[in-house]
C-alpha cells in the first residue's frame, strides 16, 4: 500500500441508486407543496377579486381583463380594475416578498425568531418612510427609495456590530431589536410633531394596509421582485451552508460573513414591499415556519414566499368583510391571527433548543 492518494473507486451502482432515491423523495414533496401553494395563491387572488360585497362572475373576468365592455355589469370593470384586482395583486406581491425575506433571515441567522419584522430592518424602512411621508411629503419613487435606504442603514449597522465575533448571528439579532426600539421612538416623535391627518395616514400605513394599491405601486414592486428574485435564489445557496454554522460554512467555501451579506437582498426585498404596503405584521415572521411544516421540516424560500402571498391576500379579504361595516387594514388581521401562531413557533423553537 502506498500513501499516495489513489483515485477513489467508483461507488457501487446500487449505492448510487440509493442516494438518488433518498435525495428525490423530499424533493418531490417540496415540489408537490410548491404546486399546491401556487394553486392556493392563485385561488386566493381569484377569491379576492371575484367575491366580497360586489360579486363578479368568473366568466366576466377575462373580458374585463381584456378591457371589453360588459353590457350586463357596467360597473364591474371599474371595480375590478381599480379596486379589487390591484389590492389582490399588491397583497400577493408583498406577501411573496415578506415571506421570502423572512425565511431567508430565519435560515441564515439560524434563529426562527429572527425575521425582518422583529429585528428592526422593517422598522428601519418604516421610520424612513414615515419621516419621508410626513416631513418631506415624499411621493412616487421617493417613498420606496427612503424605505430601502432606511432598511439598509439598519442592516449595515447590525452587520457592523455583529462582525468579527463568533456569535455574529446572535448579536445581529439583539442589536436589531435595540435599533427597532429606538426607531419606534423616532416614529412616535414624528407622529406628535405632525398634523393629526398626517399622523393618521402614517398610522394606517404603519399598520400595514393595501389601501395604497395603485398600478404604479404594483408595477414598481413587481419590477423589484423580478430583479431581486434571481439574486435571492443565488444567495439561497449560501443560506444552505449558513445553516451548518459559521465554521463549516467557511471550510465549505462560503465564508460566514458572505452568507449574512446575502441578507442585503432580503432586506431590499422586504423594504420595497414595506414601502408599498407598510409593515404587515407577522407575515415575514410566520411564513417561514408554516412553509417548513408543510415541506416536512425543511426550510424553503419559495414555499415561504407563496405562504406569505396566500396569507396576505386572504387576511386582506377577511379584514374587509369579516366584521360588517368595519374595514380593518390587513396588518391588524395578520397581527391578531399571528399572536397565537407566534406562540406556537416560540414553543417549538424552544423545544428544539434554538433561540
Amino acid at each position, binding site marked *: 500500500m502506498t500513501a499516495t492518494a489513489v483515485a477513489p473507486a467508483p461507488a457501487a451502482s446500487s449505492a448510487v441508486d440509493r442516494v438518488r432515491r433518498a435525495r428525490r423523495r423530499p424533493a418531490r414533496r417540496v415540489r408537490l407543496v410548491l404546486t399546491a401553494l401556487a394553486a392556493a395563491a392563485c385561488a386566493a387572488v381569484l377569491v379576492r377579486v371575484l367575491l366580497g360585497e360586489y360579486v363578479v362572475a368568473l366568466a366576466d373576468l377575462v373580458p374585463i381583463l381584456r378591457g371589453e365592455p360588459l353590457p350586463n355589469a357596467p360597473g364591474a370593470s371599474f371595480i375590478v380594475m381599480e379596486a379589487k384586482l390591484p389590492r389582490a395583486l399588491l397583497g400577493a406581491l408583498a406577501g411573496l416578498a415578506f415571506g421570502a425575506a423572512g425565511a431567508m433571515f430565519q435560515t441564515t441567522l439560524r434563529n426562527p425568531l429572527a425575521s425582518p419584522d*422583529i429585528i428592526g430592518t422593517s422598522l428601519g424602512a418604516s421610520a424612513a418612510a414615515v419621516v419621508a411621508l410626513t416631513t418631506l411629503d415624499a411621493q412616487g419613487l421617493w417613498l420606496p427609495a427612503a424605505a430601502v435606504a432606511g432598511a439598509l442603514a439598519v442592516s449595515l449597522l447590525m452587520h457592523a456590530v455583529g462582525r468579527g465575533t463568533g456569535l455574529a448571528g446572535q448579536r445581529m*439579532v*439583539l442589536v436589531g431589536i*435595540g435599533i427597532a*426600539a429606538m426607531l419606534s*421612538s423616532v416614529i412616535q*416623535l414624528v407622529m406628535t410633531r405632525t398634523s393629526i391627518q398626517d399622523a393618521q395616514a402614517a398610522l394606517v400605513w404603519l399598520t400595514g394596509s393595501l389601501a395604497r394599491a395603485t398600478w404604479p405601486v404594483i408595477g414598481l414592486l413587481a419590477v423589484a421582485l423580478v430583479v431581486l428574485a434571481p439574486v435571492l435564489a443565488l444567495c439561497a445557496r449560501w443560506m444552505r451552508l449558513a445553516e451548518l454554522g459559521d465554521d463549516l460554512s467557511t471550510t465549505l467555501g462560503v465564508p460566514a460573513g458572505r452568507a449574512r451579506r446575502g441578507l442585503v437582498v432580503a432586506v431590499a426585498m422586504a423594504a420595497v414591499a414595506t414601502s408599498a404596503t407598510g409593515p404587515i405584521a407577522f407575515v415575514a415572521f410566520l411564513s417561514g415556519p408554516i412553509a417548513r411544516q408543510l415541506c416536512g421540516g425543511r426550510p424553503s424560500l419559495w414555499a415561504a414566499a407563496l405562504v406569505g402571498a396566500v396569507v396576505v391576500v386572504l387576511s386582506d379579504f377577511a379584514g374587509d368583510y369579516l366584521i360588517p361595516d368595519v374595514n380593518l387594514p390587513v396588518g391588524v388581521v395578520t397581527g391578531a391571527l399571528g399572536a397565537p401562531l407566534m406562540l406556537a413557533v416560540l414553543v417549538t423553537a424552544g423545544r428544539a433548543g434554538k433561540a
Partner: protein
Amino acid sequence: MSTTRTADRTGVTPPAATRSGSGPVLVAVLLVLLLVAVLSSITLGSKAVPFTDVARVLTGDGDGIADRGIIEARVARTVVGVLVGAALAVAGAAMQGLTRNPLADPGLLGVNAGASLAVVVAIAVFGVGSLTGYVWWAMAGAGLAAVLVHALAGLAGGGVTPLRLTLAGAAVTAGLASWSSGLLVSSKQSFDSFRFWQVGTIGGRGLDLVVTVLPFFAVGLALVLLTVRRLDALALGDDLARGLGENLVLARAAVALGVAVLCGASTALAGPIGFLGLVVAHGARFAVGPDHRRIIPVCLVGGPALLLLADTVGRLVAQPSEVQAGIMTAVVGVPIFVLLVRRGRMASL
C-alpha cells in the same frame, strides 16, 4: 471570592473586590448631580426663570411672580421625573438580577407595549379621557405583558436566555402594537390623545396625579428593597441559589411583583419610557460591582438624575417645543445597548 464569582456568572462586570469602597462616594457624587439636575429642570427651559423666584414660589411666597405657573408646572415635572427615574432604574436593576439578563428593560420586554395597548383600549373602547384614568389601565397592561413575555420565553423549558427573552419581548411588542393600531386606525380622536401619551414624557402631569400613583411607587420600592439581598443569590442561577437554601419561588415572586408595580406605576405616570432602566442599572453594575445592595442605592439616585437631565436637554434642544424624555432616553440608550451587546459575553449569560 463569592462576589467575584457572581461577576463571572453574570458576565457583566469586572471583579468587585477592587471597588468595594466606591459605593458611598459614588452615591454622594450622584446626589450632587441629582441636585444640579433638579435645579436645572426647574430653572431651565424655553423660558429660564431665576432661582430666587423658584425659592419664593416653593416657600409659598409666590404672589405677583409672573412665571408662577411655569414654575409650578416645572416643579411637578421634576417630582414626576425623580419618581419615575428612580422607579425605572431600580426596576431595571432588579429585572436584570432576576432574569440574569443584562438586557432586561421594560422597553424591550413588552411592558411598554402592554401598557400602551391597555391605554388604547381605555381610550378607544371605554372612552377614558384623563391621565388619572389611564393610570389603572397602564398598570394592568404592563403587568400582564411582563408576565406574558416571561411565560413565553420560559414556556418550552431549557432556561430563559437573554436572546429568547428579548425576542419574546420583541414578538409580543409587535403583536400588541398591531392590536393597538387596529383600534386606533378607526378612531381619529382616540389616536390624537394616544399619540401624545405614547411618547413618554414627564411633563404635563399635575401633582394630584402623582399623589394617586405614589402608593404604588412606595409599595414597589419597598418590595424591591426588602428582597434586594435575595437578588444576589438569584443572580447565581437556579441550581446554585437553591443550593444556598433560597426559596426561589418566593424570592422571585416578590422581586417580580415589585418590578411589575414599579414599571406599571412609572408607565402610568409618564407613559412608556425605555432604556433608562437598562442604562442606569448597567452603569451602576459597572461602577460598584455585582452586589445588589450597592447597585440599588446608586440606581435610586442615578436614575432620577439621568432622567431629569435628559428631559431638560430635550426641552433645550427643540425650543420652543420639546423632545420628550421617552425619546431622549431611547436616543441615548440604544447606542449604549449596542455597546453592551458588542462587548458582552452573551454565551455565558
